[in-house]
């Protein structure tokens, strides 16, 4: 199978220091890749390089076999959607208006959203269980609801790849589970390649087919959760003692702090 997004020997530095070094990463349709690692290990930078916000000094990034740097911004936005960690809306757009923003790359400059765009937006809201919010103001909804609305906006772009930067960081246990289940079913139903950065190792282990473990700008380990989530690998990248067993409910690795 051809990778949707293909990073080959990608390195990136901000000023003098390399933040990403020799990154090899391929994403495929219907697969969820979970990126974990300590703070400052380059996870968010990796996402920014993948969506084209930051341009790597070395290596290349292919979006469906075409170099991402050669594409117009709107062309990239039709293929890659990002749900960023921080989102704020200065002015009170309605939820439907926010989701319709996802149609921007598909519209010409003076073109208004038509019936088809509206259907796509409403379908996206339905898929993220947020249809009932569509007339509310983006200022009036809760953190969990907002996350679902932003996910709906990403779906409205009709992308092949969805990148998520800590989508569950401000959510409680129930809403964390909800977001992961949602991402999982969307990835399957819509054949999306998903890359998500998160600190919730157990949830990543449960829902991701592949885990990328980062430390100091390099990918230290990469593989299925059962293979890479070992006490040795986790201790190496987080520098703290852990205990790994199997979650009896899911059969997936479970990571606990050892004292």
């Amino acid at each position, binding site marked *: 199978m051809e990778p949707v997004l293909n990073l080959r020997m990608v390195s990136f530095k901000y000023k003098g220091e390399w933040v990403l070094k020799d990154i090899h990463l391929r994403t495929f349709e219907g697969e969820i890749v979970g990126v974990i690692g300590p703070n400052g290990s380059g996870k968010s930078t990796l996402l920014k390089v993948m*969506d084209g916000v930051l341009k790597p000094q070395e290596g290349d990034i292919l979006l469906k076999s075409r170099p991402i740097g050669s594409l117009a911004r709107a062309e990239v*936005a039709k293929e890659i*959607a990002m749900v960023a960690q921080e989102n*704020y809306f*200065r002015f009170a757009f*309605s939820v439907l*208006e926010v989701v319709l923003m996802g149609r921007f790359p598909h519209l010409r400059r003076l073109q208004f959203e038509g019936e088809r765009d*509206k259907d796509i937006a409403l379908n996206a809201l339905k898929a993220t269980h947020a249809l009932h919010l569509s007339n509310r103001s983006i200022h009036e909804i809760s953190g969990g609801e907002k996350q679902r609305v932003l996910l709906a906006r990403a779906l409205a772009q009709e992308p092949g790849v969805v990148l998520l930067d800590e989508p569950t960081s401000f959510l409680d246990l129930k809403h964390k589970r909800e977001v992961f289940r949602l991402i999982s079913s969307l990835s399957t139903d819509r054949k999306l390649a998903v890359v998500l950065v998160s600190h919730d190792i157990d949830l990543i282990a449960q829902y991701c087919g592949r885990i990328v473990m980062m430390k100091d700008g390099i990918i230290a380990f990469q593989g299925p959760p059962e293979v890479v989530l070992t006490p040795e690998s986790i201790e190496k990248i987080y520098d703290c003692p852990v205990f790994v067993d199997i979650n009896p409910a899911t059969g997936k690795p479970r990571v606990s702090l050892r004292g």
Partner: protein
Amino acid sequence: MAEMTRKEPLTLSRVIWVSAIFCLCLSGVASSALMIGTAEVSLSKMAALVTGTLPADDPVRLIVFKIRLPRILLAGLAGFSLSMGGVVFQALLRNPLADPFILGVSSGAAFGAILGIFLGFTFSLGIPSMAFAGALFTVYLILTIGAKRSGIESSSILLTGVIINAFFTALIMFFISFAADSRLHAMLYWLYGDLSQSRFGPLILLAPVLFFAFALLFAYAKDLNLLTAGEDTAFLLGVDVERAKRVCLLIVSLMIGLTVSFSGLIGFVGLIIPHIARMTFGADHRLLLPTASLGGAVFMIAADTLARTIISPSELPVGVITAFMGAPFFIYLLKSRGSQWSRS
């Protein structure tokens, strides 16, 4: 709120319909303003004027065509321009306190005008030219100091504006303190917005410039929508962020510079009209730009009509009226409807 329950996406026909209603309103207010003033013009005289049966030497002809009409047109164009500028600056800077004067283009124009009055230039050509030169110089300053190599960043642009404002205010005070008493009145009136010197000539220049600016900004309305949600978000959704910012900033700065060169510094209208429009019609710039601009024109004509009649036969600078009426009305709206700004 009625607008928030609208489930349909915005359509072009809705924009046209709402704009048409505003235009109707505008022509109603403008024609009423023609009849109101120190010398009352009766309906029968107006009818005679329109149908061409009024004698050529009737003073009403002079009052309506030579005095009131250019003034009303300038008021309308100034309100249109200042409100549109306010909408765009609030979006570009993502700052609800932004108004068209925030980047100091107006202070540059004001300094040019005050210098012009100081040197005894005329109101027909000399002073507006000086004012526009001041505005152009300021735009140049903002773009060279405020814009970095990495692009235009709103906080550095804002800071540059604050400093430019402070600097020109100092220069203006310097020249005011040296001015002869006979010129002081003209200076103060200019600084508060004075439409009494309006002639047809400048309007022929101003009107097409504003129309062109509106058309260009309207073409960037969707980009502005996304920019209010943050530059990163806009970029990720496909907006050419740097180009959009550059184009919009330049258009609005030049437009505001030209407007205040003829109208003086009419405050408040560019701050409150965009907010009122946003509270009424929502945050989409495709509807916001026409409603705020046309609403600003209506508001300004009404305010200027008050300014020239309230202490008749004397006149007030129109800026006094806009601030005096605008501030309490704005507080009322804020209290009763809640602002449409972010609460976080």
